[in-house]
């Protein structure tokens, strides 16, 4: 039996009187990919924010590789990587310095330069590594966000519309990366409007409706 990496128990979220996410429980095992689709405003981003700990849910708990995200946050965060829909960066740090900061803060020092060089080359950012984030296009900023997610160690990966502003080449590289990660045992949840991505990645696809999420 596969090891459950992400266990969600009775999680729900309310924005004042609006029930943005209805109570749901599910488990994502190692190596599984879950793709969430659905119209704008159905609660995809809210769900991912709750799973990443950025939003405190109105009820329920989230376990990352057995660690409670709200009680043993450090242990949980060492195993979790999250990409928001509009990532923001430190304006005084360059791309390379962002990668250095995130990897060293996660205590990844040995071999980080080699891994970073590979990721930068794959996502076609090698020539821009000394640039500040504000000098990058939206697509390039998203690529930087993806690299920062992938450079650290993790067992659960959450990505909110990772291909929304990516070029076709970037999308292909990301799909390959996700497939490799899945084969290595990472649990992955992605939200997207790109239906071709769901077929490329395989795994389970869930159509979210009005805050209602149910994993089969």
């Amino acid at each position: 039996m596969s090891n459950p990496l992400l266990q969600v128990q009775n999680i729900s979220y309310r924005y004042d009187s609006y029930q943005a996410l209805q109570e749901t429980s599910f488990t994502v095992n190692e190596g599984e990919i879950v793709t969430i689709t659905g119209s704008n405003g159905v609660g995809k981003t809210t769900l991912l924010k709750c799973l990443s700990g950025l939003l405190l849910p109105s009820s329920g708990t989230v376990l990352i590789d057995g660690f409670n995200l709200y009680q043993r946050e450090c242990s949980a965060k060492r195993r979790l990587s999250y990409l928001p829909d509009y990532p923001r960066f430190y304006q005084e740090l360059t791309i390379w310095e962002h990668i250095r900061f995130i990897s060293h803060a996660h205590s990844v020092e040995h071999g980080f330069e080699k891994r970073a060089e590979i990721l930068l080359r794959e996502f076609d950012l090698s020539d821009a590594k000394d640039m500040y984030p504000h000098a990058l296009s939206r697509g390039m900023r998203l690529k930087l966000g993806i690299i920062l997610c992938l450079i650290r160690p993790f067992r659960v990966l959450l990505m909110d519309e990772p291909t929304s502003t990516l070029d076709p080449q970037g999308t292909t590289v990301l799909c390959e990366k996700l497939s490799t990660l899945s084969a290595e045992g990472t649990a992955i949840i992605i939200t997207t409007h790109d239906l071709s991505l769901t077929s490329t990645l395989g795994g389970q696809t869930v159509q979210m409706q009005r805050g209602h999420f149910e994993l089969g």
Partner: protein
Amino acid sequence: MNSVDRRSVLTIRSKQVISSFGYWLTLVGYDSRDRSALTYIYLLYIIGFFSAWILVVMFFISDLLANTIAPFLAYQGIAFAGLVPSIGTLIFVLWCLYLIYKATNRSPLIFSKEDAYLLCQTPADRRFITLTWFFSEWLSRVLFISLAASIIGFALLELDVNHGIRMLSFGHITIAALKPLGIIIPTHLFLCAVAWIIGVYRLRCESERIIFMRSIRVLALIMGGSFFIITIGSILASSFFTPFQPFLEFLSFPLVSAFLGDSWWLGLSVSIGLMIICLAVLWQISNKVNLSRAAQETHHFQAQQVAFRLGDFDRINEMNDRKRLGSSHLPSKIPSLSGAWMLTWKNIVQSLRSFKISRIWSWLAILFLMISMIIVGVLLENGSFLFPLIFFWTANISKKTTARFRKDLGNWWLLHSLPLTPRRIILHGVVPPVSVTIFLTWFALWTSNLLGLSVDPIIVISIPFVVAGISFSSVFDILRQSDSNMLLEGQPPDFGLVGLILSSFCIGIPTSIYFVINKFSILPLVGILATILVGGFLAISLLHLSERQFRRIG
């Protein structure tokens, strides 16, 4: 262009002007969305109150000019009435040259990003848009000039009362204001139009004509400098600058007519004539103005103006920092450690890259405020003066010690993803500025001691706890107001009243201990121990509260 298009352009512009005007009304508590009779009455009251207030201030300044500045100048052998046109002309010419200088760099037509997409892409009449923007811009500028001209008019009238006119009537006052305004307003419009002609001409050209525009810039600088030297020189050493006198008289003719009444009708005709010619030229050349280029040059400036009106100084600083940082930088060579120390590494790199002289001033403000507090407290022994100083000192410390932490909260996604405890995140953000503040405060105490102002050891000992307490109070208040969605948008809140109240406890408790020790002649060592215990307890408690608040952000 049909009348519907013109009406649309006018509607857009009038809404922009009204919204910027509405900003000032909001400051005095007027809500433009409230259509009740009471609000209209309040609006009338505001208009009446500020009209009377402005008039009083104008009379006060004119009285100061007529009865203090004019006699002082007369004592130096300079006639006030003769000085007004010379200085007025100098200000007008320098201001016009400055506008020209700016117009060679940046479009005088200022558009927002929304204008760039909606208005500048339409085939609307460029002439009509240019003149609409020109007049709305000019109106906001002419108000100040009109007030200044009226004040000088009043001052000259008052001098006449002293020397000629026996009694002032309403008619005298009205004429004293209107006579200069009759010439000043068209002259001001003419000078504005000159600068706009250059700006619009640049936007009209197919190529940028860089050399031509640079030449104008250099010419403006040379003319400004020369005119300044000649005017000031002719006032202070007129005999030396006699050859330039006809030239100065020619340039200052409109203002001599405006203020001294010599050939007033001729002055009026000249200024109106120049105004009409320049407006006609502006109308003529604006038919092919490139609005998209104007928007490209000015949307950043417009965004800064809006941020300023909203009081969003973080946004203005961010925009300025981005401009100064440029697009790239070689990687930092500062060595780094792993784990939480990377936050300190990041803070050092950020501080070095965003270093500005003005940021040193805010640190020095803390130092000077501390020295002022010691002087007021020890020398004057005046509590009523001490309180405002303590308030500013506290607010300054709160601002400076939490600035980096607030910036980090603005990158909530990255900060939150770090596998670090809230305590470590807070401490790495706050400890370096707190240490600098403690060092500065001790330095101020040491300086005061050198100046012979003795400071009690209890105060010296309590400083680290007080500064840490103030800082953690502000951190707690910032975190208390923080909301995950707001932080993800990059908008961390600032400390508020709760932070200041908690800070006042951190200052008040060691101060109380100091007074108790003094009053009951208790051993100073007991006071020092009590200060350490209470101050330490307060600072640790506030840090603990901040940690809890950090975990609750959601």
